[in-house]
């Protein structure tokens, strides 16, 4: 009983810290857009593209650091440009695995270059900024930054919802969708652009190296739990937002766990649980 009261009090005190409130605000927007976008990324089998974009985010951010401009300029600029570029290059707006792999292997090389320029740039205190690009710093967001992140997240969600129906059609059966007059190529390119925005956005929260988890795990769990698209999208979004919230709470309760680790750990556990459910309980 007292333990329960302690927990409620603990939750209240958690939200009394401005940095935790900011983290929840940003995390909700980021979780929602990861869940939504992730559902389609998994459906379209484009996780490797998401993986590549996460490393592009890393390189973009390091380039911005090396050049001394705003981090977000590099992040969003690089991911959106490469996302759209991959859409343009690929056959029917889906780039080939090996092409993606080759481009992003080189991107990582560029990232190393920028890191070394930045590290030797003498601006001093600077391993930390690099590490926060790699692994995120959701607890370090300012109020403005977190509301911006929430708004961008909401914008991405709205854009996805707006194209959800044709995008679903194009993802499930490309040929029939094309015959029915759906502009599949344009949709594919726009979608990859949105994945780019999501990648840049999520980098701020859990870091370039971990954002793939937030894209993949909740969405894959949702695909496992239901085959009905409407439900799947809702479940995926709810699981992603839930992972962020639970992860933040977990890290608050156990400060030795970095929040990005907790968030990914919760998302992965949900994925494993969904895999472990016996087939009957699934809505197949």
């Amino acid at each position, binding site marked *: 009983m007292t333990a329960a009261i302690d927990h409620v009090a603990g939750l209240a005190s958690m939200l009394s810290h401005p940095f935790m409130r900011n983290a929840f605000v940003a995390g909700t927007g980021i979780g929602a857009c990861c869940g939504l976008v992730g559902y389609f990324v*998994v*459906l379209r*089998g484009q*996780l*490797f593209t*998401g*993986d590549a974009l996460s*490393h592009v985010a890393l390189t973009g951010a390091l380039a911005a650091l090396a050049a001394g401009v705003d981090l977000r300029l590099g992040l969003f600029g690089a991911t959106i440009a490469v996302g759209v570029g991959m859409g343009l290059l690929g056959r*029917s707006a*889906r780039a*080939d*695995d*090996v092409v*993606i*792999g*080759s*481009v992003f*292997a*080189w991107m*990582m*090389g*560029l*990232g*190393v*270059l920028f*890191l*070394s*320029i930045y*590290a*030797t740039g003498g601006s001093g205190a600077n*391993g930390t900024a*690099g*590490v926060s690009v*790699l*692994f995120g710093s959701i607890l370090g967001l300012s109020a403005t930054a977190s509301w911006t992140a929430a708004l961008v997240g909401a914008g991405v969600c709205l854009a996805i919802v707006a194209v959800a129906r044709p995008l679903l059609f194009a993802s499930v059966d*490309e*040929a029939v969708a094309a015959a029915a007059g759906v502009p599949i190529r344009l949709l594919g390119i726009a979608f990859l652009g949105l994945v780019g925005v999501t990648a840049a956005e999520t980098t701020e929260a859990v*870091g370039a*190296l*971990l*954002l*793939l*988890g937030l*894209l*993949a*795990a909740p*969405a*894959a769990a949702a*695909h496992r739990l239901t085959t009905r698209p409407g439900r799947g999208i809702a479940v995926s979004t709810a699981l992603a937002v839930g992972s962020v919230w639970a992860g933040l709470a977990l890290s608050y309760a156990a400060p*030795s*766990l*970095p929040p*990005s*680790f907790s968030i*990914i*750990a919760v*998302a*992965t556990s949900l*994925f494993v649980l969904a895999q472990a459910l016996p*087939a009957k309980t699934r809505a197949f």
Partner: protein
Amino acid sequence: MIAGGILSYPFMVNAFEAGTIVAVVCGAMGWFMVLRRQTFAGHTLAVVGFPGAAGAILLGISAGIGYVAFCAGAALIIGAAAGTAESPSYQDESALIGTVQAMALALGFLFVGLYHGNLTGLTGLLFGSFLGITRGQVAALLLIGSGAMIALGLIGRRLLYASVDPDVAGAAGLPVRALAIGFLVLLGIAVAEACQITGSLLVFALLVLPPATAQVITGRPAIGIGIGILLGVAVTWAGLVAAFYSPYPPGFYITTFGFGAYVVARVARGINGRRSRAPTAAAAAAGP
């Protein structure tokens, strides 16, 4: 002779020897990885080494053990789970791979945090320390590298068959699934060795760039593997030499030269107007 100056430094000799071994193993392993369209799995195995090493350092055991344990472990998870799902589709498999990768990296971050290690250690694990290789590491690399190459040589012919046409190979009695898992584990071990030298993030470049270039040039397996290995070695040597004479890291030069070769090969093929003659399990797997 230019090389004389460079090779008078023992650390450069070690870097050249280690780089050559890594490039040879990656060239051969990568050729099959590219053929099987398992670049995502390969990349994941490469980054999984990072938490392995971080965890081993946290526990106070050799980082090498951590690398091998995590990479081989992840290979088993991916290989085992990929075949057991009722609908073993590319979707399911890639979702699993993505989740394994993110979870592994998150663990690595946790381990580094718990260790209160310094940040240079972290970038070393991720981006490698090409120029700080010891004699012992070169010897270990040679041992494990040649082991992996011998194993690959033993299963190579059957693996090729199973990669190009899994259905027919299965019908002919080949253990397609065991071959797939075996290859992933071999890849994991090879990558675990390589990423101690190149770092988790860059080993992928040597795995994918030279073999992808080789498959653009020729579809013939033996020649393709040979070209992949030669290109890998050439790119690594050139990268090390360039890095020696400039302030920028070898990883940057190696990936850039590798990518340059790939682009040149693609452009040249485009000009020749020939169709890809890469073995075409590829075409099937790359489908919609």
